[in-house]
């Protein structure tokens, strides 16, 4: 490193990044000399100010030099600009070819984008439960007589209470889905509701945007609850987004309860529930009544296996103590994501549409070859006039890239529509936190895929068409002309 005590570190880094390799060191040496002289004749502060102003005002000219200078991208970019203009002109002369390619690529890319959006939502996108997402598990009862793929049976309330003693769990809560009629004044709606143990929403990191959360004392057996929490969309539809809704009555299945709060927009759990009731199991509930979906938060520092081991030990203990209801019953846990969405199906679909896209690429490549053969004469003339192979390959590839760009834009529009249709068709809509959408990530991915397809369908044929022997044909065609 050059000793430059008067040039601040940030300036050294900036100059290192922006100045060309040939100038970097000399520029720093000179900056240092200028700053050192000022420090000597005036003061250190003046030197610092001068240095800062010099470096900041130098960035633009240095960047310009990097771009337009030798080895910079500008000359190459100018060449590609010419190619794009030429490609547009020559494509507008062969509209049949252009529209066939755009149509094929649009369909292939749109199908790929729709499925990728689903995979992204279900498998790739992080869950909305913050840093605890990876520690959340669903807990299920399993019995050897249950079919192997029936691994999502519920848990009974007394078992749940006993499982709470596990030290590898930070908390264990439960939810039961139910449908209720709810009315405020003249409006009545049939909505999907959830009875939740009071600790569930805090465990998921969800707090009401208005009012208060459930307290332990609110928990009651089904049919005896006194309070409800509203989902955001129900608050809007049933109460017209009334800001003073807290404390207002709600008629639930004909019984009057009090609204104590409104949950954040977008939230619903476990699926599309819009009304929440505080739950406590009946004291008389039997252990055989395994109807609750149990959700646990594994204590920090423990693995899912450690937690499962402890829960199984507890289940074994319960089986000994309550053989009537618990003999041979054990426990299984799933990470919360895999319980709700089957990522493997979506991934299989992605593989299938990727194969489809490969077929599309092969078809487009075929069209490009056919078109290239028809243009043999033109390519031959270009080669004879001194166009190198690289130049010809670029010319042919840029045409496909232009078509791919147009197809990507139309495919993304088609995918937005297609995704809506797909979600309307799917029998079980995914939970709110796995709702697929064509967002910037999906758009970016679709563009990258389109670029790959264009390279495959454009570059391969271009390399093939510009082989030297291809041009022998040209000399044959033109032998009689000279």
């Amino acid at each position, binding site marked *: *490193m050059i*000793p430059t005590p008067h040039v601040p570190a940030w300036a050294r880094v900036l100059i290192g990044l922006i100045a060309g390799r040939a100038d970097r060191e000399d*520029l720093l040496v000179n900056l240092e*000399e*200028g700053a050192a002289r000022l420090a000597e004749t005036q003061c250190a502060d003046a030197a610092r100010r001068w240095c800062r102003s010099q470096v900041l005002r*130098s960035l633009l*000219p240095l960047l310009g030099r990097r771009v337009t200078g030798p080895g910079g991208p500008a000359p190459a970019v100018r060449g590609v600009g010419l190619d794009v203009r030429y490609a547009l002109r020559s494509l507008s002369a062969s509209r049949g070819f252009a529209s066939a390619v755009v149509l094929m690529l649009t369909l292939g890319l749109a199908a790929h984008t729709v499925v990728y959006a689903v995979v992204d939502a279900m498998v790739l996108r992080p869950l909305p439960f913050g840093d605890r997402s990876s520690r959340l598990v669903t807990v299920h009862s399993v019995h050897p007589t249950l079919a192997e793929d029936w691994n999502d049976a519920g848990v009974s309330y007394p078992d749940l209470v006993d499982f709470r003693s596990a030290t590898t769990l930070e908390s264990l809560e439960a939810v039961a889905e139910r449908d209720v009629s709810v009315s405020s004044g003249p409006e009545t709606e049939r909505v999907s509701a959830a009875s939740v143990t009071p600790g569930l929403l805090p465990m998921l990191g969800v707090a009401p945007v208005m009012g208060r959360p459930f307290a332990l004392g609110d928990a009651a057996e089904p049919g005896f609850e006194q309070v409800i929490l509203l989902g955001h969309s129900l608050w809007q539809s049933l109460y017209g987004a009334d800001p003073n809704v807290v404390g207002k009555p709600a008629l639930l299945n004909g019984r009057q309860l009090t609204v104590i709060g409104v949950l954040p927009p977008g939230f619903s759990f476990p699926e599309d529930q819009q009304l929440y009731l505080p739950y406590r199991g009946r004291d008389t509930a039997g252990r055989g009544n395994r109807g609750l979906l149990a959700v646990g938060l594994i204590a920090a520092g423990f693995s899912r296996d450690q937690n499962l081991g402890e829960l199984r030990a507890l289940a074994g203990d319960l089986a000994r103590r309550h053989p009537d209801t618990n003999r041979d019953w054990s426990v299984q846990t799933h990470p919360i994501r895999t319980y709700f969405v089957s990522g493997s199906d979506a991934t299989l679909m992605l593989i299938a549409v990727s194969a489809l896209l490969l077929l599309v690429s092969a078809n487009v490549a075929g069209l490009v070859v056919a078109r290239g053969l028809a243009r043999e004469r033109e390519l031959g003339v270009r080669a004879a006039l001194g166009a190198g192979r690289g130049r010809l390959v670029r010319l042919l590839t840029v045409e496909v890239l232009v078509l791919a760009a147009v197809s990507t834009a139309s495919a993304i529009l088609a995918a937005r529509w297609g995704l809506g249709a797909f979600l309307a068709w799917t029998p079980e809509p995914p939970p709110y936190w796995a709702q697929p959408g064509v967002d910037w990530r999906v758009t970016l991915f679709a563009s990258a895929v389109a670029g790959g397809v264009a390279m495959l369908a454009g570059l391969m044929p271009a390399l093939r068409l510009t082989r030297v022997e291809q041009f022998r044909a040209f000399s044959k065609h033109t032998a009689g002309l000279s």
Partner: protein
Amino acid sequence: MPKGHFVGELELYVLLAILHLEADAYGVRIRQEIEERTGRDVAIGAVYATLGRLDDKGLVRFDLTDPQPIAGGRSKKIFALTAPGRRALEHSTEMLSRMMRGVALRPARGRAR
């Protein structure tokens, strides 16, 4: 004279500053020379970008000095005009004075410089 050998304003200043400074013609001194003579506070990066362009055109060349006599001291690039550089400078100034001939520039009002 090829088209590439016409020089722009800052290029002209830099070429002239190199002639003035002779053996002392390196980055920060060239910048200072221009500032002292024209009153224009040029960024050192602009001087380097210009020197790079002039080098591309073959109008200047540089020699490296011996490293500065301090620990970790580095060499500096000392710039000089090449023969085409001199010709380009003569050509540009000649063209400028031809264009100026017979033109009466009114002094800027209210400014005595």
